[in-house]
């Protein structure tokens, strides 16, 4: 029986109609394409009236297939599938042609665009005829959630979920949660004490009955799918038994080995070989750094063990593994700080009094290595002049092309702290001042009034090579004052480099582990940049905070909460629909060659020894179709992407080439009367 196909061409206002002759296209489809019984155009197909149009035709005309020529299926495939389902047509009997993204928005010649549209519609019509009814299955959603990353974003997400009564596993790589925010002294523009506002949240996490905090731990492996993920967590050996440790800190006090703290103190201070990153750490249990500990290096010492009142030290402790079942995942893995030695012209690592932003942050902190005093590298001298260099590794094609979003405001904060603490003359060397949030511009005003000097010009270099009188013994910041149009050499005592925020060095591995993707720059990719900023292309995996792109604390917190809300919606609904796009092996055709077995990255294909054939476990199959393409016996079919469907689509797309027997190479503006 011949199918009855309905073709619907969307104007998308003028988005499509401005470049494609939509009325002509609909007429052409109705007149020329086989099996098309209805062909219409409409202003906005995605509107409720547009959808009703399709639904009515299905019912009245008895349509058995629907083609919608509109935008990308990534935007409205669900909408039109639903419309079909409403009218009683299996939703998988609908096919979209992307007239907007693939034609009208990328073309500049209306005739050629319309010709291309005919090909796309022709392809979709041929394909849809081959499509088969498919049925999505339902799966329950596990109410537990995995939150990866215990910075302020992850903390917020975890607390939102836990406070709503859902269980959260919070995994943090470092020995304590808190992230970068715990390292900061003040927050802009309110100058709140960073630790004072963060630590209450940290202890809430530590004490919450609905949160299992897994610090000093990493996610090893994730399998499964939305609603039903399985995660394997590696808990690294702390060398301290958490069950016995009271967190008294005697071990730290007695440990004789001091090492530079590259993480929390940003290399500016020291910690012991057994340590807690900072006094308010959550959890309170210390960790032995086995690479630094004298016992692990030389076999003797054990001072911590000797003095521990509860015998909590365990030198033999091994990494342990935890298998978790969760329904959703929130990634809040944060960022790495730019390594400023990559810009040798700024002298970081070579010129003693050039500091990184994180070093300066720790220096300002009353609990930091200098007790909150701003001093030169000698540890005692108060600087009389300080230059703050913006855009170090940001807005630079050689490093990171993007703006790191927070540095301008952080530089203003540093300016305020430096003036307050030292009375020094503070210069800010900027390209553009970016202060676009509530009360931020007002903070800029405040610093102008406080006497911070602003020089519009990206710093060319920082040198100790004195050239002019007054430069001896100083660091000279060489720049062009672009507003004055003159070169400027500014001798200062201290330079602070505002390094870029960068994706975690292992962000791509993390993305791969969770089946999501990264942008060119390495930030996790959201489902939609405007309308779906915390979801990802992988259902059940959400992203929040700086791992998605540079942002400040309030934005990160908002995303953490938003991701939690999305997860709660999933949990509350209780079930998810599983796409039926999977591969199936037809046993009668399978020769048992097992070529497909090892091609599947999800181990969804197993070989049935008794029958001598291979078999696809539909629950594990993600529908990539690689096995379908590889099967030499063509015994595997891929639902919704079968060979027949794709062959038909090719035929349809090339309708004008085949009909002309190779003569159809010239695009005729009006091959068939429209």
């Amino acid at each position, binding site marked *: 029986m011949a199918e009855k196909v309905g073709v619907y061409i969307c104007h998308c206002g003028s988005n499509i109609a401005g470049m494609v002759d939509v009325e002509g296209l609909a007429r052409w489809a109705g007149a020329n394409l086989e099996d098309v019984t209805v062909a219409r155009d409409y202003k906005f197909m995605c509107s409720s009236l547009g959808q009703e149009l399709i639904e009515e035709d299905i019912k009245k005309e008895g349509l058995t297939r629907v083609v919608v020529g509109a935008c*990308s*299926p*990534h935007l409205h495939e669900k909408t039109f599938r639903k419309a079909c389902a409403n009218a009683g047509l299996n939703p998988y009997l609908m096919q979209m042609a*992307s007239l*907007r*993204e*693939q034609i009208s*928005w*990328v*073309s*500049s010649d209306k005739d050629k*665009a319309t*010709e*291309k549209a005919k*090909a*796309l519609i022709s*392809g979709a019509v041929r394909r849809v005829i081959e499509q088969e009814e498919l049925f999505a299955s339902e799966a329950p959603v596990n109410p537990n959630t995995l939150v990866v990353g215990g910075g302020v974003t992850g903390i917020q997400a975890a607390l939102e979920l836990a406070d709503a009564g859902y269980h959260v596993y919070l995994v943090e790589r470092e020995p304590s949660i808190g992230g970068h925010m715990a390292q900061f002294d003040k927050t802009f523009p309110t100058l709140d004490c960073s630790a004072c506002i963060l630590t209450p949240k940290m202890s809430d996490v530590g004490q919450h009955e609905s949160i299992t905090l897994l610090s000093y731990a990493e996610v090893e492996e994730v399998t499964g799918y939305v609603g039903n993920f399985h995660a394997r967590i590696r808990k690294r050996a702390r060398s301290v038994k958490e069950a016995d440790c009271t967190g008294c800190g005697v071990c730290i006090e007695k440990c004789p080995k001091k090492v530079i703290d590259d993480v929390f103190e940003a290399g500016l201070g020291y910690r012991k070989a057994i340590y807690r990153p900072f006094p308010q750490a959550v959890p309170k249990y210390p960790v032995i750094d086995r690479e630094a500990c004298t016992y692990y290096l030389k076999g003797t010492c054990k001072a911590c063990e000797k003095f521990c009142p509860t015998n909590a030290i365990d030198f033999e402790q091994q990494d342990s593994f935890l298998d978790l079942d969760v329904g959703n995942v929130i990634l809040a893995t944060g960022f790495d700080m730019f390594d400023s030695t990559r810009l040798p012209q700024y002298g970081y690592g070579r010129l003693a009094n050039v500091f990184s932003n994180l070093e300066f942050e720790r220096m300002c902190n009353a609990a930091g290595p200098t007790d909150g005093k701003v001093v030169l590298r000698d540890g005692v001298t108060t600087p009389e002049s300080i230059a703050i260099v913006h855009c170090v590794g940001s807005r630079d094609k050689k490093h990171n092309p993007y703006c790191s979003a927070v540095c301008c405001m952080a530089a203003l904060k540093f300016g305020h702290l430096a003036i307050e603490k030292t009375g020094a003359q503070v210069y800010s060397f900027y390209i553009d001042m970016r202060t676009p949030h509530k009360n931020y511009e007002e903070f800029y005003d405040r610093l102008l009034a406080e006497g911070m000097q602003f020089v519009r010009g990206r710093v060319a270099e920082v040198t100790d090579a004195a050239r002019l009188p007054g430069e001896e013994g100083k660091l000279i910041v060489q720049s062009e004052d672009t507003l004055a149009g003159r070169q400027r050499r500014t001798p200062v005592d201290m330079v602070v480099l505002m390094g870029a925020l960068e994706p975690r060095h292992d962000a*791509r591995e993390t*993305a*791969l582990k969770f*089946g999501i*993707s*990264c*942008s*060119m720059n390495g930030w996790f990719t959201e489902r939609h940049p405007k309308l779906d900023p915390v979801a990802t*292309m992988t259902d059940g995996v959400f992203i929040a905070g700086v791992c998605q792109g540079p942002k400040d604390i309030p934005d990160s917190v908002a995303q953490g909460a938003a991701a939690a809300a999305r997860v709660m919606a999933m949990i509350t609904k209780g079930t998810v629909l599983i796409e039926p*796009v999977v591969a199936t092996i037809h046993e009668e055709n399978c020769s048992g060659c097992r*070529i497909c*077995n*090892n*091609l599947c*990255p999800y181990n969804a294909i197993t070989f049935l020894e008794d029958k001598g054939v291979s078999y696809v476990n539909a629950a594990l199959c*993600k*529908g*990539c*179709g*690689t096995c*379908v*393409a*590889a099967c*030499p016996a063509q015994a595997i079919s*891929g639902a919704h*992407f079968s*060979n027949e469907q*794709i*062959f038909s*689509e*090719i*035929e349809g*797309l*090339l309708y004008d*080439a*085949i009909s*002309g*027997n*190779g003569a*159809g*190479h*010239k*695009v005729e503006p009006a091959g068939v009367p429209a």
Partner: protein
Amino acid sequence: MSDTFEPKIVAFLCNWCSYRAADLAGTSRIKYEPNVRIIRVMCSGRVDPTFVLKAFSLGADGVMIAGCHPGECHYLEQNYKAMRRYYMLRHTLRSMGMEDDRLRLQWASAAEGVQLAAAINEMIEQVRALGPLNWSANWHENGRRLEALGRLAQEHAEAMEVPA
């Protein structure tokens, strides 16, 4: 109507990266030539060599396979399988006397709308320079040709599909 040869390119784009790159080219209004016709597949690993041969036989002058960058495949590593097939196919095309530049493998992440558009334009130029393929004419003259090609491709496929 101009006399310049307008090649027809069929492009197989994976759902996750390159199809989204095409979406992005659209939303960013990046113009490219209209000679390309896109087919969505879930993964570049789904592209069966016979799809490519079918497209050539039905009148395509060039075929593009686009997928996620190596290491960024949504399905972990299936784009590597696509790459292997691509090299096999180029070999096959060459051995059949076809210019292997008519087949192109393009990596495009979801963020690379500009790059994908540029690659499409570049390929159109290349294929335009090569001239019409006209396999479709041969197809009509000798209906067995495609079957023969299919068999040949299959043999190669079997030889090449050594599990990773």
